């Protein structure tokens, strides 16, 4: 099969990928995390109060991604006799018993912002058969919130990494390639910019505007792109002095072509090795901000918010509240870090030249 030129892996890359696959802990972490992330993209099928499939009176319904079905579609009515509210899918199993109708519910039949007040005791309620990880202080299912929290967290961290990497790479490349005055000046600007205490700035900003997903992403990207510029800059300095760069120039290649077609593919090592750690710091930063209450707006499901609930004075004894988000954060960070270490090891050029 012939792949386009830019997609074909160079033998060096192929060897690195093979080496990464041989580092078992990193490779397995990568697989597990990828599967979890892909699953979390379909979280509506895993934790939701809407059924996945309803078979009612000879007709199939797929309420998960579909529109709103009113109660009378399935012949339900609520305790006050209304029929124009959303159907209660959890009640269907009982309702359909003994008929040919059936319903398939997600494994966790609660959505993350739904409050469950059916218990006698006020929330938080400890884990039981109904809520496998219990409910939080507002009666919301902890397991559902963990899953949706994971999705938001990962999406946020990946988007942040993507944006900061692209911006940092472009700026670092231009610095290294142009060198001279532009390099010196922009380097000083970056140093000043980097010394600003980012967390305080976000906190101050959060008191003025209530941050949403995108504003938070933008703010964190603005303060997070500097790290990678250092590496890209030095890589450019090194690569541009090699003769193939001169050869490209003598063919008449434009600067953009040289930087992005010739130099960048040779300077990808720091980029790839730093990406997993950038994801770690993205997850960590979002969780920390949520914990402090300056992150995503409630009722967005979030790990940091769960943790802050658990650590609030009234809830110290409700251990399930602290254990589950703690375990989730730890496991995710460990997985990403293991991937990062394996990538770094796979890219280590000293594999071939060991000094004795």
């Amino acid at each position, binding site marked *: 099969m012939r792949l386009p030129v830019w997609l074909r892996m*160079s033998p060096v890359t192929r060897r690195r990928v093979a080496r990464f696959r041989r580092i078992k802990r990193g490779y397995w972490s990568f697989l597990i995390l990828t599967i979890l992330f892909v699953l979390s993209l379909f979280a509506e099928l895993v934790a939701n109060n809407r059924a996945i499939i309803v078979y009612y009176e000879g007709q199939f319904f797929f309420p998960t991604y579909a529109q709103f079905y009113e109660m009378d579609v399935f012949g339900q009515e609520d305790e006050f006799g209304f029929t124009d509210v959303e159907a209660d899918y959890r009640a269907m199993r009982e309702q359909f018993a003994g008929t040919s109708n059936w319903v398939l519910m997600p494994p966790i039949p609660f959505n993350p912002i739904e409050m469950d007040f059916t218990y006698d005791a006020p929330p938080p309620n400890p884990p039981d058969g109904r809520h496998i990880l219990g409910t939080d202080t507002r009666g919301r299912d902890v397991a559902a919130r963990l899953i949706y929290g994971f999705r938001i967290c990962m999406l946020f961290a990946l988007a942040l990494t993507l944006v900061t990497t692209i911006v940092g790479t472009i700026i670092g490349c231009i610095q290294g390639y142009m060198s001279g005055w532009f390099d010196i000046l922009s380097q000083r600007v970056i140093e000043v910019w980097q010394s600003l205490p980012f967390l305080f700035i976000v906190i101050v900003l959060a008191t003025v505007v209530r941050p949403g997903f995108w504003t938070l992403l933008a703010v964190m990207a603005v303060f997070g792109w500097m790290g990678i510029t250092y590496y890209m800059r030095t890589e450019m300095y090194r690569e541009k002095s090699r*003769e*193939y760069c001169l050869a490209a120039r003598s063919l008449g290649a434009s600067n953009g072509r040289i930087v992005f077609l010739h130099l960048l593919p040779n300077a990808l090592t720091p980029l790839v090795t730093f990406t997993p750690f950038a994801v770690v710091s993205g997850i960590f930063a979002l969780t920390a901000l949520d914990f402090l209450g300056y992150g995503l707006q409630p009722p967005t499901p979030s790990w940091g918010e769960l943790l802050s609930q658990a650590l609030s004075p009234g809830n110290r004894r409700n251990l399930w509240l602290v254990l589950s988000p703690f375990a989730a954060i730890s496991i995710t960070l460990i997985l990403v870090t293991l991937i990062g270490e394996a990538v770094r090891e796979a890219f280590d050029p000293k594999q071939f030249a060991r000094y004795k």
Partner: protein
Amino acid sequence: MENHDQELLLSVRNLKKHFPIRKGLLSRVVAHVKAVDGVDFDLHRGETLGIVGESGCGKSTTGRLILNLIEPTAGEIRIGDSPNLASLPNKQWLPYRRRIQMIFQDPYSSLNPRMPVGAIVGEALAIHKLTPPGEPRRRRVAELLEQVGLPRDAARRFPHEFSGGQRQRIGIARALAVEPEILIADEPVSALDVSIQAQVINLMEDLQRKMQLSYLFISHDLSVVGHLCHRVLVMYLGRTVETGPTPKLLYQPRHPYTRALLSAVPVIEKDQRRKRIVLDGDVPSPVNPPSGCHFHPRCACKFDPCEKVYPKLIDQGDGVKVACHLYDPEYKDSIPDSVHRTLNNYGTAPASNASQQVATVTTPESNDTTTEDAPTP
């Protein structure tokens, strides 16, 4: 053989490159490295001009200046009847890059390790929009690879899968993609084994015959230069010291520096070994070159004016130009006898054998025993 009947392709006049040395907080320019300091030459169609000299004499810089890879400080570069190309912006240079290309010294670092050979060779086709992408370009790349003696399927492989000689062929194919008239070869064989050198040189000769190419051959290897070049230009500290047709320059070197260079060419036959001239010291710093003739501190034949006046490049009547006071009619009568005596022995003793020695190294026949290398699949 001078090809003055042939069309003039490249003319370089008074080419200079002074690199500033900056110091201190404000980056004040404290001095200049005069890497190239006024070089003139012409190159005709189908001709090979060799530029020789020690390392650091500005040969490579000259090559790069001509292609505008380094911006010249002063001088004129004309390709054919073009306007002066020196310090023309890159955009306006682009059309001229189809007429002049370069072969690089190091076959290992001059090919992008992340690019398959097809992309490397085809890049010029893309930049100059010569062949549309896809099948036509693939066919053209295969054609170019065959032209330099590589298999067609080399296009799909990566540079590191090839040997040094094959990689240099890839570099030549890349340069040929635009169908240039002039190739600047910057020490194209000095990184290769001797047997491979011969193959690459034979390839370059074949290509020259087929395509009427002109070469600017930059080298420090006099036997290669003698074999390949029609004319030679000897550089020392950024300036021309002697230039002329190869046989003249190698059989009857005039400038003491040329004589010293030639005496360093190793000879196998014992009875033909001549006295080796060992130059004292290093090449002086181009930041602060010696007064007068730059060569005088290392020259055995120096006399009065050498320390004071830089010698003019004077035509000797037989196509050779020498920048040495010994050959300047103005000083002809003031040369001391001792210098005459030294000069007569200098690098050519025994004088009758000297030319033959060079000839054995440089006649084309001596290299014809080497065979074309068959690229390994």
